[in-house]
């Protein structure tokens, strides 16, 4: 429902029989009443200005300076040097590539599994409330707790995952150091935490699909698979879009998982930077190497990268539709 209602809207149909006392549009020039709305939004906008908007705008300015964490009050103008040094740093490109790889490795399986799980839950079954709650247990687990547990599960020498692989006659995998294995392990943490959450979002959307559509499709002799593709999926479009956007934003922010998955929680993201993400690279530059100006530049580049991904997606979508 998106009725734009002002202070004195016309009554929506069916809500209010327009009698003689239907609200008339009146301008009341009582001072207090005129200023009241500003009073109500003031708390939010004061906080928003100080802790939301000001930092956003100031990031651009800070990224043009040399600012050290040890002396945050001293700034030296360096122009675009923070950005040029960034583009010359192989570790930046490495972090950008890792972010993309881990993003794909975590988002795609996560959303596909969530679709399957939602489809399983979208029938009459016993213990529905229990399964829904269990789906959210990983979401209740913090990044830090989940990563510490998974780092142990994926241990090279004594980890249960390698023990199971060994039982299946496979060689142990070096989950902490392998360039691909470590990215897969970090992605597994993300998949584990968010699959159930996304499944519930899909489930909510599935339950709004009218039952008649399924019945009609069944009468037409559509198989279950065809019902899923032609009835369920179209009803999920907004939910799919929402989860893809949220997962993509989440990918650019990946920080806790790669920080705590490495030994000693080093900001390098593995001995070889093999799973250092952009978020972790920003942290390393700003809070380990103490170059806050450069961290600010990385933050801007992250936003640009996000914008580029969404821009490309829109172009592709437009091309496919057109």
């Amino acid at each position, binding site marked *: 429902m998106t009725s734009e209602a002002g202070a004195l809207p016309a009554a929506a149909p069916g809500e209010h029989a327009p009698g003689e006392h239907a609200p008339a549009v009146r301008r009341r020039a009582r001072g207090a009443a005129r200023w009241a709305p500003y009073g109500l939004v003031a708390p939010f906008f004061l906080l928003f200005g100080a802790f939301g908007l000001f930092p956003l705008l100031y990031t651009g300015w800070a990224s043009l300076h040399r600012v050290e964490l040890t002396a945050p009050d001293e700034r030296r103008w360096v122009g675009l040097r923070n950005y040029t040094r960034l583009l010359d740093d192989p570790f930046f490109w490495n972090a950008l590539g890792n972010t993309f790889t881990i993003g794909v490795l975590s988002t795609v399986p996560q959303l596909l599994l969530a679709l399957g799980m939602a489809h399983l839950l979208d029938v009459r*079954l016993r213990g529905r409330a229990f399964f829904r709650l269990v789906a959210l247990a990983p979401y209740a687990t913090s990044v830090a707790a989940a990563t510490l547990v998974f780092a142990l599960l994926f241990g090279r020498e*004594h980890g249960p995952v390698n023990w199971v692989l060994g039982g299946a006659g496979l060689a142990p995998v070096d989950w902490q150091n392998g360039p691909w294995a470590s990215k897969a392990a970090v992605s597994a943490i993300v998949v584990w935490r968010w699959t159930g959450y996304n499944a519930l979002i899909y489930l909510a959307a599935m339950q709004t699909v009218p039952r008649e559509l399924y019945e009609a499709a069944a009468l037409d002799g559509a198989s279950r698979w065809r019902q899923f593709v032609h009835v369920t999926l179209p009803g999920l479009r907004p939910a799919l879009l929402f989860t893809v956007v949220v997962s993509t934003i989440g990918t650019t922010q990946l920080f806790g998982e790669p920080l705590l998955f490495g030994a000693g929680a080093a900001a390098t993201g593995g001995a070889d930077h093999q799973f250092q993400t952009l978020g972790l690279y920003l942290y390393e530059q700003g809070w380990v190497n103490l170059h806050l100006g450069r961290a600010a530049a990385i*933050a801007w580049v992250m936003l640009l990268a996000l914008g580029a991904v969404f821009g490309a997606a829109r172009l592709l979508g437009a091309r496919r539709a057109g």
Partner: protein
Amino acid sequence: MRTEKAGPGTYALLVVFAAVSLGPLLWAAVAASRTSTRLAGTRPPLRFGRNLPENLAVAWTDARLGAALGNTLLVAGTVAAGTVLVSTLAGFAFARLRFRFRGALLALVVATMLIPPQLGAVPLYLLVARLRWTDGLQAVILPGLVSAFGVFFMRQHLLRALPAELVEAARVDGAGVLRVVWHVVFPAARPAMAVLGTLTFVAAWNDFFWPVLVLTQPGNPTVQVALTGLGRGYVPDQTVVMAGAVLGTLPLLLVFAVLGRQIVGGVMRGAVKG
């Protein structure tokens, strides 16, 4: 909504999903109940041992998880209550009051929903450092109160749940703004306030990036900062690390067990209509 009954295949797959969802947490509890020598054995432990109380005690004191739990409860509670209040007031103004720049201000709020928190981190850190707030909980609480999502969520709810005539009638009766808010807006907003409060509490409890920047271990940690300290080898014993992970997760799991339906409903509602 499909109406067919679940077959045995569906149950089997759901049980697998449940096992994968709960398995890591259960195994963490098993590992936390063992000794470090047993954990470094050739075969990972699969049954509970007897060392859980001991490991929990070490995590509680040495890793400062006890203090951290109190801090986190304070932070998450304050952020949830404050966010609900601030968002409800602003959401009501955006939904049912007419004022200059309303559209522009709302667009500004929505636009910031998509911006990653990393973008403001550097200036925010400079601000907090200048105010000498590092290691103070207010450095985590105050920025946490800014929830564009909260304002938008409350506005959407009040557009549905609060008839404009109701507000108008109260104003005609001569009620001031505060009385309207208290007697008309809050009752209509209550269900959404509960959902927003719960979701905000969970998010604040698990918030990681910003607290790790401004709070220190062993100075004044939240649970997530204390767990990061464990990851940094603050207490090198992995059984204690697992005890910390269990201890830091248990309170939220209890919240979920008690308020499960609400949270499930919140996740399902907040997203689909967002």
